């Protein structure tokens, strides 16, 4: 999330200025550690309440956590593998496809904060 170039805060919208702290990698690290901590708390929360379940497997402590993590990792690894034989150049279907075209300027209003 680190920025390549320094932004002039004056030109940013108010909310954008408030979000500038995300430019600092240290703060990004803090968010990541916050996520680790949240996950830890959620995992151990399973030991402190009576789960209302339909299936035996749901009673395994942290089942949803493990399932979510494992399946997402599996999803990404499979999808990455799929790229090997599914990925083609952007112009593969051209000119019968919009993928390699620029979006027509008439539909856009490309203003920047410096305008």
């Amino acid at each position: 999330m680190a920025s390549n170039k320094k932004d002039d805060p004056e030109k940013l919208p108010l909310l954008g200025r408030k979000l500038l702290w995300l430019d600092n990698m240290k703060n990004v690290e803090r968010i990541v550690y916050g996520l680790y901590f949240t996950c830890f708390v959620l995992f151990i929360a399973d030991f402190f309440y009576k789960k209302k379940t339909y299936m035996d497997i749901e009673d395994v402590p942290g089942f949803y956590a493990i399932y979510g993590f494992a399946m997402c990792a599996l999803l990404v690894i499979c999808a990455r593998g799929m790229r090997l034989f599914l990925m083609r150049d952007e112009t593969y279907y051209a000119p019968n496809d919009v993928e390699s075209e620029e979006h027509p300027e008439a539909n856009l209003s490309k203003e920047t904060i410096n305008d």
Partner: protein
Amino acid sequence: MIDVFPPAFFFLIAAGIVAFLPQGIFRSALLLLTPIVAGLYIYDLPHGVGGEVELAGLTLEMMRVDKLSVIFGLVFCLASFLGNLYALHVKDSIQQIAALAYVGSAIGAVFAGDLVTLFIYWEGTAITSVFLIWARRTEGAYHTGMRYLIMQIASGVILLGGTVLLYRETGSIAFDKMTLGSLATWLIFLAFGIKCAFPLLHNWVQDAYPAATITGTVILSSFTTKLAVYALARSFPSTEILIYIGAVMTLFPIFFAVIENDLRRVLAYSLNNQLGFMVVGIGIGTELALNGTAAHAFAHILYKSLLFMSVGAVLFRTGTAKGSELGGLYKTMPLTMIFCVVGAASISAFPLFSGFVTKSLILSDAAHEGYYIVWGILLFASAGVFHHSGIKIPYFAFFAHDSGLRPKEAPTHMLFAMGITAFLCIAIGVYPDPLYALLPYDVNYVPYTTTHVITQLQLLMFSALAFTVLMRTGIYPPELRSVNLDTDVIYRRFLPRIITKLRNIISGMWLFGTWFASRKVAKLVKTLHNSHGPEGRMARVWPTGAMVLWIAIILSATLIVNFI
């Protein structure tokens, strides 16, 4: 019997008026007021069947008002209002008229009481919506629009075929609960399946939606597929095959969504995945599951519009919606980013957001009815949708690496449209009772229990953890400028190639045949010329004198025979 004015006509008449109204405040007002007036009108409609019209000996019912049709009618009006507000800057009459006529057709289809009325509006949605793709006015959009139109019209023609066969079999054209069995019902099922983007029939969604204009995609995403969900819920509840079709639908698009670069196409894949949940609900067919389908369709239309709006706003300001080209926009488009995150949280079913209170109706009923494997797939798909829509879309558009782009915040009317939609997504999540009151059956379901909240948060936060870990270890596939082959490669590449090959073989055979035959004929002519031509041998042995002599001989012989 009720005698009511069909609400579809509000939109169709407005579309007609827009054609003659100059661009400006009156036209904008008409575009915004029509869905509001139609929505209020639908909310107050008395329940029953009416609007009968005689056509070629058949009695058509233009209006069937019940809780199922009303909830879809209402959310269509809401989506139309939000879509038109978002598109307020568009000064293209074709898009404005197409958008109104498209919504009118969709609402007409929802209130149709018979299959012929349904067919008319069904085709109406196809013909009007394609203009939202063609309005991009590029060669690629033209070809994409043609592919879209072929699929949509094919669906309509199959529906008509099924209707005709059903009428021959049963003498009825009622658009009501059916049981799969005869060819007629299978054809109707297939027609609905094409529009609902069943697996292998799904490609038109991912092909066409990213090809439309920025505002066109927002409008397209709300109607056609949800109309098909309504049609399935009306005709094929408790059809077991739908449970498995739906489960596959939730599953395979998430893989494609992870590797897709165009963020609007990622959203089209996740749209497909969300339809899967609704289809499973229809297949289970209990009151809870059908409530789940209707509620999820309602919530889905809103958060999916919101996501398409936010990515559209980025496209509007930067000229691209590709993950590989974007990143770091959170500073300059913070409001759009926040609205996108609200949409992402809603589709991911975070507690306090709309998806949480609607999707769980379907998931818990799948478990309750004993479809454990399907439940496992739906749970995986829920984690997956958070992964690619919930995290990937906001992350690659607004965070990730700094693309160097510094676009201005989206225009005010877009921010209003997104803001209202985001508010509704949160409102439904926090206080679902008004939505539950609109559902077809009484709701006896409490979404906010300790177990549900904690297990859902575990699922989502650990999916986020997986994303973070994979991102930081470099395993997560980077966004690359590319297209990924889906099953549409069969009809876009393989079939045309096979046809070209066959054409070459057949034309080669034809050329060889004609060459061979003409050579033979030429040879024959030459031979005949040699033998019978002026210089030919045969011509030489047949002089005129010889013929005169032979005639004289035959004549004399005749005379002798006569004399004797």
